[in-house]
């Protein structure tokens, strides 16, 4: 089964769960005065769940004929692409999200930029480090001084605000 039909199967599952919630669980706690209303909070979701399930089934059973075309990237040959780099970069993004608060904006961002280019195969540290540091400071200055959105620049224990 091709990837698009697997995804349709997953989406069908999501629609079923959503539909179950809309049809069977939402109306129980409805206040009596709301019940006289022609529209309930569950009305629109009920319609959507049916519609979504219909579309998912059409894809799943291949009712709509289409010639398969391969786009920019053929997922069947995913291992031939630089999959490792992409995954490590995604992990780096997660690390950044977790480290942003405790490490402060400047440290986390320059680290992200430096390690990002390292992962992509750059080894010229004398360029990577200054570029990362200057860019992090520049963006911090732009966001917190020009746009006036507060971002803690340094780690919390250095005592610059919360």
């Amino acid at each position, binding site marked *: 089964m091709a990837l698009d039909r697997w995804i349709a199967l997953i989406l069908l599952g999501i629609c079923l769960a959503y539909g179950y919630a809309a049809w069977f669980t939402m109306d129980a706690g409805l206040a009596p005065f709301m019940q006289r209303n022609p529209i309930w909070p569950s009305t629109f979701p009920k319609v959507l769940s049916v519609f979504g399930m219909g579309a998912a089934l059409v894809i799943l059973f291949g009712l709509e004929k289409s010639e398969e075309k391969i786009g920019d990237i053929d997922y069947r040959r995913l291992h031939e692409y630089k999959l490792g780099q992409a995954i490590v970069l995604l992990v780096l993004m*997660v690390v950044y999200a977790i480290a942003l608060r405790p490490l402060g904006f400047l440290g986390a961002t320059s680290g992200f930029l430096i390690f990002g280019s390292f992962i*992509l195969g750059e080894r010229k540290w004398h360029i990577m480090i200054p570029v990362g540091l200057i860019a992090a400071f520049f963006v911090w200055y732009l966001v917190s001084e020009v746009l006036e959105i507060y971002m803690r620049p340094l780690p919390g224990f250095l005592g610059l605000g919360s």
Partner: protein
Amino acid sequence: MLEGMLIGLQTALSFKMILVVVGGCLIGTFIGMLPGLGPMSIIAIMIPVAISMGDPSAALILLAGVYYGAIFGGSTSSILLNAPGVAGTVATSFDGYPMTQQGKAGKALSIAAIASFCGGTIGAILLMFFAPMLSSVALLFHSAEYFALMVVGLSAIAAFAGTGQVAKAAMMTALGLIMATVGEGALFNMPRFTMGIMDLQSGFGFITLAMAMFALPEALFLVLKPREINDSGSDNIKDMRISRAEARAIAPVIGRQSLQGFFIGVLPGAGATIASFLGYAVERNIATKEEQEQFGKGSIKGLAAPESANNAACTGSFVPLLTLGIPGSGTTAILLGALIALNISPGPRLMIDEPQVFWAVIMSMFIGNFVLLILNLPLIPYIAKVLAIPRNYLIPFILFFTLMGAYIGQNNATELLLLVAFGICATALKFADYPLAPLLIGFILGGMLEDNFSRSMQLYDGIAFIWERPMTLGLLVIAVGLVLLPSYRARRARLSAEGVADGD
């Protein structure tokens, strides 16, 4: 109308606004030039900046400037490197790149700039006349018609998705609508589908979703499959002059394609990409025999046609956004999200309640086009140097700006984790050839769709509004027709093809 234009000029010609237009156009040109980054990602990245400016006219002018700039920049990389940065400029590379190979890169860039300028300007003039007309009609609409109109818009987007793609586009629209129902709606005052998670109480963040749908997958694609760029064009841009005979040859092409592109852009679901391909095809068909030979080998007509069409279509796509408040493309959907965040609801009342916003945007289109022409023509050889930035530095920056965009708005690190998770899902969907724009359009329209649906249900005490209001019924019939038509036509084509095979 004259009064409105003057108000618009007054707003758009202030020093700050001119700075905003110039800045937006430059940023758009720079980023749009980078292969693989489309206008949607650029606008998504710019939204936090636009919102924090606080002034709706400035925000919309900035984002619109970024939009034209991106289309313009995309055509530059199409011409110089045969690597379109934007889907709307793929047709530009058909004749633009051969011209570069023949050493006529300068001329190709000039023709592209002039064609874009004319397309954008003619589009803005048409917008100026059509938008008020459409708005006065739209003022007669009730919530029932609005509901039906949005359904028509959503189904048109699905219908234009291409052969064999209608069900996928419909599925993505449904998913977007489903995601829009998560959280606490204004209408019912109770949280829905939050599964008890506090972070979902206010629903999914629109910017996070926009970043995850467009910017992140595009960046990941760049990581997965590095494009080989053989930079030969950006160093030898010279002789940008166009002869009088050439100008005479492309003038009618530009005129025709500006008109055609604009009206294609107005249709929901058909944007700059379709307009540019169609413009190219039409011009090739009506050209003389000798000129047809030239198409694909560096014809100036083949370059001018898609360039004027895609710019006019970009302008045209503002018509449904500004008059009905219904976006017809992914890009205008993002613009709508930004406007809602700034407490402006585009629609027929926009022209009456906020004339300065409406007219300032239109006036800024003229200024933006002009800026693109005079700024970029002399500067393009230097701007093209951005194409030489090594990807090892570029990609971390793109990823960082994606993260920043989601973070600045909310100041919440959980949003970043959501971004990565959605980004991975979006990349998988992209692998399987699911279109992502319908998801975002569905997500943004979801709230309004449900509001209008609920209001009409309440007014008519049930679904009677569907048959008691003829216009609503008519629109809904059109919507059903739009969804069913492509599969009906495909079926008929298949049956007739089989018939032919049997006959043999």
